C-alpha cells in the first residue's frame, strides 16, 4: 500500500459525496410514490399531471447528479 493523505482524502470525499445519490433516491421515490398515491385516488386527473411529475422528478434528481458530479471531480479532476 502506498499513496499519500491527499489521495485518501479524495477517495473518502468521493465516497461521502455518494451519500447524496442515496438522498436523491429518497427524493425521487417520494415524488413518484406521492404521484401514484394521488393518481390512484383520482385516475382521471392523472394523465394531465404527468408533465408535472417529470418536472418534479427532474428537480429531485438534479441534486443527486450534483453529488455524483462532486464525486467525479474529486476522483478525476482534483
Amino acid at each position, binding site marked *: 500500500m502506498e499513496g499519500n493523505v491527499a489521495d485518501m482524502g479524495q477517495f473518502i470525499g468521493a465516497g461521502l459525496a455518494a451519500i447524496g445519490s442515496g438522498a436523491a433516491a429518497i427524493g425521487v421515490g417520494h415524488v413518484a410514490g406521492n404521484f401514484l398515491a394521488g393518481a390512484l385516488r383520482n385516475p382521471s386527473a392523472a394523465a394531465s399531471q404527468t*408533465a408535472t411529475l417529470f*418536472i418534479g422528478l*427532474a428537480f429531485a434528481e*438534479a441534486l443527486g*447528479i450534483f453529488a455524483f*458530479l462532486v464525486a*467525479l471531480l474529486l476522483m478525476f479532476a482534483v
Partner: protein
Amino acid sequence: MEETVHAEETGLTFHPLDQFIVQPLFGTGEVHWYTITNATLWMAIAVLAIFALFVLGTQRRSIVPGRVQSVAELMHGFVHKMVEDVAGREGLRYFPYILTLFLFILFVNYLGLIPTAFTPTSHIAVTAVMGFGVFIAVTVLGFVLNGAAFLGLFWMKDAPLVLRPVIALIELISYFVRPVSHSIRLAGNIMAGHAVIKVFAGFAGIALISPLSIVAITAIYGLEVLVAGIQAYVFTILTCVYLKDALHPGH
C-alpha cells in the same frame, strides 16, 4: 476528460470514463476547435438522421402518411402539444427552437446507445451550450416582452412584505442556477448511465460472475433506453417552463 495513461493493466481494470475521451477522427494530435473529432461525427450523424426523418421522410406530404412520415408527425405533434400545454399558445411562436432542441438531444442520446458510439450529450461542454442558450434566450425574451415588469418574477406580490427581499434573493439565486442544473442534469444522467454500463462490463472479466454481469448490463441498457428518452423530454419541458416564466412573469 483529459487523456489518462494506463501503465499497468493487471487483473480487474475499471476505466469507465475512457469512453468519453474526445479524439480526433483523423490521425492524432491536439484537439482544436476546428478539429473533426468523434463528437463532431456523432453530432453530424444525429443531424443527418433528423434531416432524413423530417425533410426526406415528409417530402411526399401524403394525406395518409406512410411509416416514416407518421413517425415524424408523431414527434412533431408530441412536442407541439407539450409547448401548448406548458407554455401556452403564445409559446408556440418559439416552437421551432424547442422542437430542434428536443430532436437533437433525443437523437444524440439514442445514437449514443449504439455500442462503441460516442455520446456528445455526455459532455457538459455540449449541454452547457444548449442550457445557457435557453437561459440567455429566455432572459432576453422576458425583458423584451415585459420590460422591467419581468423583474416581478422575483418580487412575490402575494408574500408578506417582510419576507419579500429574502424570497427575492432566493429566487434570484435559483434563477441563475437554472442553466447550470439544466445542462448538468442531462450530461450527468447520460454520463452516469454509460459509466455504470462500463463498470459492469469490467466485472465481466471475472469468469464466476460474468453471466450475472451480462444480465446486469442488459438490464441497465434497458434503463438507459428509458433515460435517454426521459432526459430529452425533461430538458424540453423545462425549456417550456422557463419560456412560460418569460411570457407570463406575473404568475
